[in-house]
């Protein structure tokens, strides 16, 4: 016996051993799969997950989300802040544990749906619906009545009546008569899967949006154009492959002072040329190349141009002149030079707030420069200086910047499809059912005994009423047809 033979001798054994080992491994895997399948298909898990998501969601409504860390530190103090931070409670809807709950629910929905669908597949997709007459006979809520005619006379009338309200029907011969089986809306058993699928669509759409989309904002001063925006999470910049210009911004108010409308005139510029213009207001965004621009905020910008009014106290002459901030003007009557240096939104003067004001410097022909404060609201303010000239601001152009929310969400159509599917699915699931009807007519002497029974997979109470109604209609049918005769 040589070594080779030896090996050959053992080879089948070896193979056998490997097969067994593989088998055990596979069994273990299968077991593992099976047990996790079992874990995820339980409705108990759905209930637990739904309620945990509901319960934990409350936290994020009590703690304002995504604020500055300082705000939280002030509100909660250091130790509590640390604990909250560990659990991501300041951005909890994007935290690992909340996402984990959602993933768990997703798997749960998928597994439950597949599990149930495979069990009910044969019921939903059949060519010839099976009927079991004894099942209908056992129903407690069946109706029975006696008709004066024989089954043969009744068959045609009943058939045409039932075919009107049921999509499928067939007639079968029974002992001493016939039996009509009818059914409708078998497909509504799929309604619940539609709802589940719609939830998945929402989640997939949201995922697409978060991976391929962006959400940012940009402030554009009137008359200026930008080609990039700032993203909302993090301080990243997103470049646009076009320019967007704010031609004009207007805000109007109601008499009560509440804002009425924010309106921005926007232009899209490709290679410096306007290709699209639109006025946007809240609820009516501009869309270009899949990117949406929403009116979201606005703010004042320091004015650049103003109209200055000044009076020579000695001669009594009053002048008016347009100027821009930083521009030095030569005053008439040899009064010297004046420059408006700056604009402030709010100025305190000797402990009194005088509101918006311009700051200027007067340099007389012979003498030192004098600081001049020009509050926009008080034209006679400069008179208090008791100088040779009284300055005031006759008017200025309020400039604004428009604040735009800029989003791109390629997943939104998937989400919308999910929305429609969810509403339709809920309607089907709640208010439509697979209804089955059985009308049996048997001969009794010269008359017929009619039995009407039916089942539905949902809303059994409603089906009972329906059976009563159908039975009543069949009785009425008898009257009218005998009256005709």
């Amino acid at each position: 016996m040589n070594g080779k033979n030896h090996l050959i001798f053992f080879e089948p054994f070896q193979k056998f051993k490997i097969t067994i080992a593989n088998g055990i491994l596979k069994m273990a895997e299968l077991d593992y799969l099976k047990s996790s399948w079992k874990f995820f298909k339980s409705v108990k898990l759905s209930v637990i997950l739904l309620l945990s998501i509901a319960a934990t969601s409350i936290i994020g409504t009590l703690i304002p989300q995504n604020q500055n860390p300082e705000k939280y530190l002030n509100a909660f103090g250091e130790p509590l802040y640390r604990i909250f931070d560990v659990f991501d409670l300041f951005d909890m809807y994007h935290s690992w544990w909340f996402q984990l709950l959602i993933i768990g629910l997703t798997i749960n929905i998928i597994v439950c749906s597949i599990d149930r669908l495979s069990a009910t597949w044969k019921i939903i997709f059949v060519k010839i619906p099976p009927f079991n007459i004894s099942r209908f006979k056992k129903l407690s809520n069946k109706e029975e009545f006696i008709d004066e005619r024989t089954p043969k006379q009744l068959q045609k009338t009943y058939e045409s009546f039932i075919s009107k309200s049921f999509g499928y029907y067939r007639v079968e011969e029974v002992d001493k008569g016939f039996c009509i089986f009818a059914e409708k809306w078998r497909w509504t058993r799929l309604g619940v899967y539609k709802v589940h699928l719609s939830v998945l669509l929402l989640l997939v759409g949201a995922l697409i949006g978060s991976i391929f989309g962006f959400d940012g904002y940009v402030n554009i001063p009137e008359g200026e154009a930008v080609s990039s925006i700032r993203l909302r999470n993090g301080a990243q910049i997103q470049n646009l492959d076009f320019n967007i210009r704010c031609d004009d911004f207007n805000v109007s108010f109601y008499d009560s002072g509440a804002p009425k409308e924010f309106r921005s005139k926007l232009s899209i510029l490709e290679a410096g040329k306007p290709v699209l213009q639109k006025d946007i207001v809240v609820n009516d965004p501009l869309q270009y190349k899949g990117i949406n621009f929403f009116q979201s905020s606005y703010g004042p910008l320091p004015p650049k141009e103003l109209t200055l009014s000044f009076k020579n106290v000695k001669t009594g002459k009053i002048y008016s002149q347009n100027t821009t901030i930083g521009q030095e003007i030569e005053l008439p009557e040899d009064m010297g030079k004046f420059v408006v240096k700056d604009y402030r939104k709010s100025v305190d003067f000797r402990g009194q707030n005088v509101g918006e004001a311009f700051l200027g410097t007067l340099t007389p022909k012979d003498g030192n420069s004098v600081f001049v404060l020009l509050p926009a609201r008080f034209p006679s303010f400069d008179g208090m200086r008791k100088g040779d000239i009284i300055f005031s601001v006759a008017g200025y152009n309020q400039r604004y910047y428009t604040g735009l929310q800029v989003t791109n969400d390629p997943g939104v159509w998937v989400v919308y499809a999910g929305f429609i599917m969810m509403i339709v699915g809920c309607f089907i699931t709640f208010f439509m059912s697979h209804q089955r009807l059985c009308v049996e007519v048997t001969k009794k002497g010269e008359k017929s005994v009619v039995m009407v029974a039916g089942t539905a997979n949902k809303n059994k109470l409603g089906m009972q009423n329906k059976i009563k109604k159908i039975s009543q209609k069949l009785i009425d049918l008898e009257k009218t047809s005998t009256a005709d005769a």
Partner: protein
Amino acid sequence: MNSSYVLSIVTFIYGLAACFYIASWIFRKLLPARLATWTAILAVIGNTIGIVMRWVESYRLGIGHAPLSNLYESLIFFSWTIAVVYLVIEKRYQNRIIGAFTTPLSFLAMAYASMSPNISDRIQPLLPALKSNWLIAHVMTCFIGYAAFAIAFGISWMYLLKQRDTVGKSGLLSHFPLPRILEELNHQLVMFGFLFLTTGIITGAVWANSAWGRYWGWDPKETWSLITWFIYATLLHARMMRGWGGKRIAYMSIIGFAAVLFTYFGVNYLPGLHSYGAV
């Protein structure tokens, strides 16, 4: 005579209807029962007139919009929906005792709107964000849902009372619908409410997307409506898949309505986008 005046009279008619329903339940007499139904119908008519008048008035003020834009207007619409849904149920189930548990809700909503010093009944112009056709769809669907949940809440209490007395000793409970029917009614109303709540949340999401470019932002009101949705979803799954019934479903329906109330009123005390609903 303006709409606020009409609506404050309607408040008292609802109160009267509630009294008649309760009287007819306690004394089991036909007269108050009939009066109750007619008073409730009168209240609904008055309520409708009040809403239409308010709509017309807003156009006269030059700020025309559907009367669904603040807490006062939503409460008025809420009581209207509760009363209408209830009357449909009364007609269908031929039982007026349910009215003793639901018309008080219409009355309370109206009374709160008319009498609370914190709620202004002035017709206010619409803020820019509210100027959208989605406003009507969103508010109407939400409140139809809320009304169904409100009635389910009343019926759940009826169920809990009724099932304590299974032998039928108490005369007060003897004319209640059978527990089986109350349970079924509760379930039907929850399904009806759930469909409308779903539609309400969805129309709100579509609106948010057209106004702010995001269909979901975890704003407290959004989140609370989702919490409510989850509670009712749990109820539906527990009932349909695990065969829960009876007391447990009644309790869940009551908890669900508590979440509705918090979504409606409580959230106004939390920071967020939906501050329009506040006073």
